[in-house]
């Protein structure tokens, strides 16, 4: 700690940081542009100047840039000295000479860091009378708008996009006051993390196109703390709504999870909530026709059906539904009749991932911790496509080697440019094992390409290379053995070795191999446990596994068997309640069709149109994440509460509410589900591993001066007029009984709450007086880069590790033997496309690629397939026609096809035949058009 004096007041601050960080952490207002809490300092904008005095007698002092000046013991400083104030106003006045002052028509207006800093600096009279420069803007794709005239050249976009996120298609072009940030030519920004530009840009150069399309000001948006549902990482978000439409998703800072950044799937995938075919009213099938009915009728009808003793009701749960909803369904049908809603393979993988997390061989780490890893092995997971935000963290971990190199010559970690110069290409070792090329390849020390079994064998070989007690792997090539040795050496040497693996190949041997490596490392290293991050397929996969881990034979395939068995053997009639699940995404069309045929009745509670919904005898409209309160458990077993952003339209209810309402009066097990708090309490009582969720049980009666926290800013406008075409009488706003948050603007701003009795997890959006942009976040943090003040709405569960789960060495899988004339089909995950929810958002759909078959040149040769061919892929009874890519950066004897292909649902591995159908007519006609 160092003592510094700012404007006559003494403070104790941490050494090692810069003065800007220190001032902001102290809650002082000091304007800045080019500094960013995640990007560090470069000293370009000169906005954060303050005066430093040599000693107490020094009256003049010296202007220094606070972001470039390290904290030092005894420093005497002034933010308010006249020459500092004048200089900062001068910086604004100067950089505004080319700004178009188009705030009224700018999407950033009202949450613009440039507006905030201009007001803060006190510059209000313009002296510049000359012309302003004008640029041509670019079409950067469906997600990001571009208006370069607003640019103040802080360079944050470039530093984020290229240096931090590894993007290559954004450049600074030209020089002086004509610097242009853009692509060489129009086109969609290639990075999966491009959406963060919207928040990184301090003004309206990069804006959210999905918001612009149907625009509202920040102060008019209703927001709530939420959690992303598009992969298993559980990034914290702040979605915004107006007029009953979800309009955008912004990052909600959580220093342990997503920090300041989201991936594009998470940011732009929200639009499925606004789908115009969403069920809003309960419906039943009557004489083969769908008929909407009232909620009351639906409840009575279903209550009667559920009370019918001649029918055995089973429940199909969901990895995208909350804990509360899954448990409510379990309670409704009884645990023995509850099925996970995953096919057998996915269920087995989920349970084995859970078992691995509980084995005690490795310490499961958050994304923030992952950034501290100094050697990483990613075994069988293409995280850029399956857990994108984690790829951004891995990138930071790899880059951190440069920081270590810089620190050795006295350069502090925050001095971003100098760190990069000193670090140059220094990388912590990253090893990738995958079946095809990935976006992280460029960072990797080495990449192994192979089939899942080959990858698992490499993993076993690494374990053996680490600890000779682990069984050896026979039949490896020399190169494979050498690679295993290299990886083993780097993992042993590292202070914090990290293993990343997961569910995407559906390969148990890969998970076993991961466990073997962890066990070997624990045995050899002794000191600290190696680190582990496992990737699940969906947002609450782990939560579902936790509710379902005690039973046997309780996956979707088991439900199928029971139904068909009962139908064919004349057993008790089977009916099913299906929770937030499109079964056609989980299993082949035929088996799902057979399942429905065997059921005497079916109820689907979901929020999206789907083939499953079409099959249901009764549909109950469920709330999506944006209208729900409940807990989902992310991949690191962090239980996080999400809150409804706005009341659902029509008869939408949260699934657990429906289940509570339809439960027959004889079923007391659902009595607990009368409100959200009791529902969650029921969850943590039901499963001891959920006990830690006690801490996210926020008291719904929490009040500040008798008031709740408003989901909107007090400046929100036009509410009285919103429904004026219906009635001039403003209706009573919906009351939220489930939390301390109030719908719309009644209540106090979260800011007031933070000052008094903070509850960090309840922050609907980041706003602070004078800080309208998301940069206001530092006002709510214990320190810059630190945790949010007050209790978070999330907690790491303790997954009771168990010695029984600590398996002994396992024999590695045998060298796989190919099937003559066949290729192994592997499905590949797509960041834009694989997730069934986000792909319904137009911006994501536009960025998804059509499915293709990808072959190694040797295999293409063997099957006589050329690059322009149309290829027929045959397996089971299916024949699909696909265009083909031939690339050497993929495993041999393998056919890769995007998992978005409908025919492949429920098939993750199969032996297939491929046959050329001749030149692809589509490609040829495309070419002809291009030639013209």
């Amino acid at each position, binding site marked *: 700690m160092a003592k510094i004096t700012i404007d006559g007041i003494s403070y104790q601050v941490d050494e090692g940081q810069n003065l800007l960080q220190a001032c902001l952490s102290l809650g002082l207002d000091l304007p800045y542009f080019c500094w960013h809490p995640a990007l560090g300092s*470069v*000293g*370009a*904008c*000169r*906005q954060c*100047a303050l005066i430093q005095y040599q000693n107490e007698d020094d009256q003049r002092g*010296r*202007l*220094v840039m606070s972001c*470039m000046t390290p904290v030092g013991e005894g420093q005497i400083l002034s933010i308010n000295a006249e020459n500092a104030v004048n*200089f900062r106003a*001068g*910086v604004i006045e*100067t*950089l505004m*000479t*080319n700004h178009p002052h188009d705030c009224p028509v700018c999407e950033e207006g009202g949450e613009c860091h440039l507006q905030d800093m201009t007001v803060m600096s006190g510059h209000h009279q313009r*002296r*510049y*009378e*000359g012309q302003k420069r004008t640029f041509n803007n670019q079409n950067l794709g469906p997600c990001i708008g571009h208006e370069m005239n607003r640019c*103040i*050249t802080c*360079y944050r976009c470039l530093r984020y996009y290229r240096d931090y996120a590894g993007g290559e298609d954004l450049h*600074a072009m*030209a*020089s*002086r*006051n*004509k*610097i242009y940030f853009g692509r060489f030519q129009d086109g969609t920004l290639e990075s999966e993390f491009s959406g963060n530009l919207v928040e990184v840009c301090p003004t309206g150069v990069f804006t959210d196109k999905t918001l612009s399309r149907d625009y509202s000001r920040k102060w008019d948006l209703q927001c709530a703390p939420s959690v992303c549902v598009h992969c298993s990482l559980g990034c914290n978000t702040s979605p915004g709504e107006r007029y009953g439409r979800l309009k955008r998703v912004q990052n909600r800072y959580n220093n342990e999870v997503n920090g300041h950044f989201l991936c594009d799937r998470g940011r732009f995938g929200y639009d499925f909530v606004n789908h115009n075919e969403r069920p809003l009213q309960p419906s039943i099938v009557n004489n083969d026709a769908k008929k909407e009915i009232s909620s009351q009728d639906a409840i009575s009808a279903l209550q009667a059906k559920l009370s019918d003793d001649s029918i055995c009701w089973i429940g199909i749960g969901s990895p995208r539904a909350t804990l509360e909803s899954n448990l409510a369904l379990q309670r409704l049908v009884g645990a023995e009749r509850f099925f996970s809603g995953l096919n057998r393979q996915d269920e087995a993988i989920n349970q084995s991932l859970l078992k691995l997390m509980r084995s005690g061989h490795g310490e499961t780490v958050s994304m923030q911790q992952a950034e501290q890893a100094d050697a990483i092995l990613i075994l069988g997971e293409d995280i850029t496509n399956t857990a994108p935000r984690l790829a951004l963290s891995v990138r930071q971990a790899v880059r951190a080697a440069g920081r270590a*190199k*810089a620190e050795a*010559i*006295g*350069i502090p970690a925050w*001095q971003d*440019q*100098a760190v990069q*110069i*000193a*670090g*140059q290409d220094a990388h912590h070792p990253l090893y990738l094992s995958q079946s095809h090329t990935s976006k992280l390849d460029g960072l990797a020390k080495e990449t192994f390409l192979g089939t899942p079994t080959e990858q698992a064998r490499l993993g076993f070989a690494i374990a053996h290379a680490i600890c000779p007690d682990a069984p050896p792997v026979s039949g490896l090539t020399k190169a494979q053995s050498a690679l295993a040795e290299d990886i083993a050496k780097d993992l042993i040497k590292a202070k914090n070795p990290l293993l990343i693996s997961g569910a995407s190949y559906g390969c148990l041997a890969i998970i076993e191999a991961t466990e073997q490596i962890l066990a070997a490392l624990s045995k050899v290293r002794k000191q600290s446990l190696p680190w582990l991050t496992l990737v699940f397929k969906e947002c609450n996969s782990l939560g579902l596994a936790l509710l379902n881990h005690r039973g046997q034979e309780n996956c979707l395939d088991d439900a199928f068997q029971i139904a068909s068995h009962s139908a064919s053997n004349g057993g008790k009639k089977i009916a099913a309640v299906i929770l937030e699940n499109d079964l056609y995404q989980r299993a082949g069309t035929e088996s799902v069709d057979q399942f429905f045929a065997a059921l005497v009745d079916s109820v689907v509670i979901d929020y999206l149109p789907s083939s499953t919904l079409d099959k249901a005898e009764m549909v109950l409209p469920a709330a999506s994440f944006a209208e729900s309160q409940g807990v989902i458990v992310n991949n690191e077993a962090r239980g996080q509460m999400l809150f409804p952003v706005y009341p659902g339209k029509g008869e939408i209810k949260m699934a657990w509410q429906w289940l509570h309402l339809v439960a027959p009066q004889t079923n007391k097990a659902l009595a607990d589900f009368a409100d959200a708090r009791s529902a969650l309490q029921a969850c943590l009582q039901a499963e001891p591993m959920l006990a830690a969720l006690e801490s996210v049980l926020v008291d719904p009666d929490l009040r500040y001066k008798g008031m709740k926290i408003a989901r909107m800013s007090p400046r929100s406008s036009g509410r009285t007029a919103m429904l004026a075409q219906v009635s001039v009488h403003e209706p009573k706003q919906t009351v939220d009984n489930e939390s301390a948050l109030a719908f719309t603007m009644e209540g106090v701003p979260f800011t007031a709450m933070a000052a008094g009795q903070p509850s960090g997890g309840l922050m609907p959006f980041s706003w602070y007086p004078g800080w309208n942009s998301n940069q206001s976040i530092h006002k709510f943090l214990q320190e810059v880069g630190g945790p949010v003040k007050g209790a978070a709405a999330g907690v790491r569960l303790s997954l009771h590790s168990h010695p029984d789960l600590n398996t002994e060495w396992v024999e590695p899988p045998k060298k796989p033997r190919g099937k003559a004339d066949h290729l192994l089909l592997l499905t590949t995950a797509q960041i834009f496309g694989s997730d069934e929810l986000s792909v319904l958002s137009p911006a994501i759909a536009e960025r998804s690629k059509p499915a293709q078959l990808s072959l190694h040149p040797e295999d293409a040769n063997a099957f006589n397939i050329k690059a322009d061919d149309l290829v027929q892929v045959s397996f089971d009874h299916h024949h699909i026609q696909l265009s083909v890519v031939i690339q050497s950066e993929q495993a041999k004897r393998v056919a890769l096809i995007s998992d978005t292909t409908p025919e492949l649902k429920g098939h993750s591995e199969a032996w297939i035949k491929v046959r050329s159908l001749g030149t692809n007519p589509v490609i040829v006609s495309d070419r002809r058009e291009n030639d013209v």
Partner: protein
Amino acid sequence: MADSKTRATDISYEKPLTGMIRSDRSPLNLKDYRQQGGYQGLEKALKSMSPNQVLDEVKASNLRGRGGAGFPAGLKWSFMPRDDNAPRPRYLVCNSDEMEPGTFKDRLLMEGNPHQLIEGMACTAYALGAEIAFIFLRDEYAVAAANINHALKEAYDAGYLGSNMLGSAFSLELHLHTSAGRYICGEETALINSLEGKRANPRAKPPFPQVSGLFGQPTVVNNCETLCNIGHIIAKGADWFKSLGRGDDSGTKIMGVTGNVKRTGLWELPMGTPIRELFEGCAGGMIEGYEMRGFLPGGASTDFLLPEHLDLAFDYDVIGKAGSRMGTASLIILDDHTCPVAMVKNLTHFFAQESCGWCTPCRDGLPWSEQLLDKIERGEGTMEDLDTLAWQCQFMGPGNTFCALAPGAAEPIQSALKYFREDFERHINEGCCPWH
């Protein structure tokens, strides 16, 4: 003291830097250079001196950087880690991106005697333990590039460069890099970025290049003229070098004059020579009918001085005390037929064009200054504009910007406002430029 009518070229001052250069400026080849005593410094250094002795000799010579800032060269070198554990590779870079308006001294040195630069660099690299060196050359200097390339080949063939130079344990790879042409590349850290293939934006200091420079390795960047002195200092000793100066500073300096003088050109004169000897003795004073009103003493980015300053000794500290900078010692003369506002506007246009665009005061401040000067020059200015200009000069001052470009650019503006204020006011009061 020389007669003011005498051409300084006739005076028998020792001219180590230009003495060998032929009047037609055709380059000396290796044989000619050696015949005139060339490469004796390098042979002495490699055969009989330790790197530390070379460094100490340069330190003792009190050679100050000839690029404009006048930082002692030996001191600069001493910041480079040179012990056995110091990082490798280490780099030496010659800054030949000579783009200061009115300055063309390095061009003469490189075109006329490239071996002198190579010898200086080889001695310097030996002192620093640098195994790789670059000459970063202004793109337009095509003749210099050809001459250097020829000399490099000769030097490699003769063992003055390459592995185990002159049979010693020391090896040096010396490369010529022709720049893409930006004024900012003369700023040493921007030069390094450019050499790495990055945008030519300056870097934050600290860390200084001696600690983390080219590709993050220890690097020394010296001006071409500075490096050309090194071989002579090693060959003849620090005391000889110190004795060359007439004032406090050591050695000679190539000084230039441009403007409406009788003879524009370059002359090598002892440090501390009175400016009048350069202006009247060498350049022959103003041509008939022209009066000098003032001059920029060290290139475009220095403050104006007045005729009354002509008797000052041309030394770093003397000129500094008079309120300007010695810079590159290249006089640009303002005469009474030229509008000072137009002249300053022209210079400001150059600096605004050459801003790299990294920091706000320079990127957006200089075009604004240019706009104001243009407005005043067109007779549309106001007295408030003069206040704004004065404020801008302060705003772009040293310490407020990321590098020295904008503070340098502000120097002619602020001194013009000081010395030629009545001319600015006449533009405003008369509503037009009095020179038009």
